[in-house]
């Protein structure tokens, strides 16, 4: 029996619950009163506001993903080098904050960052000038990194703990120091985990919506807010353009994933298969 069989139950599920609803959205994006049209797509592209917002959202998501990777990789690496029991405790400790409600945590950040908030009280105690932290772009960044960091740590950690230890030893035996071993042996081997992590952080981060509203004070409109506006505030008549907006995002993300896949293939990683 071929192993592909194991995927069949999922494929049935996928066709009904992922593909079919998606086709409904695509249908909305490309139809007007029952007939095919590119009008919605053109509306979405021709409004300079939409594209500006899209670019800014992608840029913020990219920055947040980079920060998550820089902060998260060392955490995953340190955990993977620990004793198994300690590591598994810490690993869960890095996830548990996410089990508290997202909105509540973000409200708590408001209390921390507010002008008369906890961090500024601490600064005043140290005789440092108060900072305007809430309702800035940095606050959005902080909120995004905060909410997605665990999604970067987990996949990298799972790959690192099963690293081929003999390769690391071999590198040491051949005289490579810690830094060289890391960049030549450990990092390349953990690439599948990194890519999974980037996927889980970057893609949802583009369309996250409450963070920009609560920590950015609604002053920095992001793509998620725009789509929400289309679907909810404007009501059913605006669904076609809203669908077109999410379709554009979809194509953009899938294309960039394909590029990433190609790049990895070119790098010659184990025959070049992404995951």
């Amino acid at each position, binding site marked *: 029996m071929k192993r592909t069989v194991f995927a069949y139950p999922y494929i049935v599920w996928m066709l009904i619950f992922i593909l079919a609803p998606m086709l409904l959205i695509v249908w909305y994006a490309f139809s007007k009163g029952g007939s095919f049209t590119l009008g919605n797509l053109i509306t979405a592209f021709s409004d300079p506001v939409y594209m500006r917002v899209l670019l800014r959202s992608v840029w913020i998501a990219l920055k947040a993903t980079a920060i998550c990777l820089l902060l998260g990789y060392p955490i995953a690496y340190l955990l993977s080098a620990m004793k198994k029991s300690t590591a598994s405790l810490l690993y869960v400790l890095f996830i548990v904050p996410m089990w508290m409600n997202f909105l509540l945590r973000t409200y708590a950040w408001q209390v921390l960052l507010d002008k008369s908030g906890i961090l500024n009280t601490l600064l005043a105690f140290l005789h440092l000038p108060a900072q305007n932290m809430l309702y800035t772009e940095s606050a959005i960044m902080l909120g995004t990194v905060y909410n997605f960091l665990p999604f970067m740590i987990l996949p990298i950690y799972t790959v690192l703990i099963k690293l081929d230890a003999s390769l690391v030893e071999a590198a040491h035996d051949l005289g490579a120091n810690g830094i060289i071993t890391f960049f030549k042996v450990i990092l390349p081997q953990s690439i599948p985990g990194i890519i999974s992590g980037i996927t889980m952080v970057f893609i949802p981060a583009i369309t996250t919506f409450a963070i920009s509203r609560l920590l950015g004070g609604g002053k920095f409109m992001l793509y998620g807010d725009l789509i929400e506006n289309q679907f909810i505030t404007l009501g059913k008549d605006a669904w076609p353009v809203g669908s077109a907006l999410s379709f554009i995002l979809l194509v953009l993300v899938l294309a960039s994933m394909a590029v990433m896949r190609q790049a990895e293939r070119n790098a010659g990683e184990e025959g070049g*298969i992404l995951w």
Partner: protein
Amino acid sequence: MVKKLWGFFKNTYLALMLLFLYAPILVLMVFSFNESKTMGNWTGFSLKWYQALLKDGTIMDALGVTLSVAVISAVVATVLGTLAAIGIHSMHKRRRAVVENISQLPMVNPDLVTGISFMMLFALLGLKGGYVRMLIAHITFNIPYVIFSVLPKLRQSSNQLYEAAMDLGCTPWTALRKVVIPDIMPGIVSGFILSFTLSLDDFVVSWFATSGIQNLSIYIYSIARRGISPKINALSAILFVAVITLLLIVNLKSIREEREAEKQAKKLRA
């Protein structure tokens, strides 16, 4: 010396990161004991929100829905997703690319779009039950996270093990259970944990996919218009303390066991 410094640096870094993640949690726990209803405006110590919480049937209902949906959807998504990953891993290139790309859709789509598309689909299918709708929606957006947690582990493990097990006369199921699954276990566990986490916290998809039933997130978003009640802080504090206590009990035991085993080993060597 260098080693000590490195160790110190390591621990400080992890501690700082944990502080970053737990700072807001501490804030919301502290304000569960606040006399005032406003988070950030401390007026005095009080336990009244804890009392009010226990009497609040709506919150308790919502908590029940949240927890049961999170567990069931995460378990189903982990099983389906793990099997799917194993199957996808051995597909031909082109077919695999297609399946992988479609699997990414729930991650790529804004939650809102996923939610609305579910709403339309369920209306078309004539599916009535609010609870079942929520379960299906949660399972669906969880599966990709399982698949993309398990696939990197599959890439790491050797393909030949499964074939070898089959050659030795295992049925596919036994080969799977005895050889493949143990090898990719860390990926499965992290896929499960991610699913559970996402399900606990989902508001947007749940809101649109179901009606007549609500989880805690829907409840919290809807009371936000009039101000989040410290009852919710109190609930979070209770859940948080319960989870951390359970974790410590379970893990400290295994840490102690591991230490004991090490000592034994040392003794034997000596």
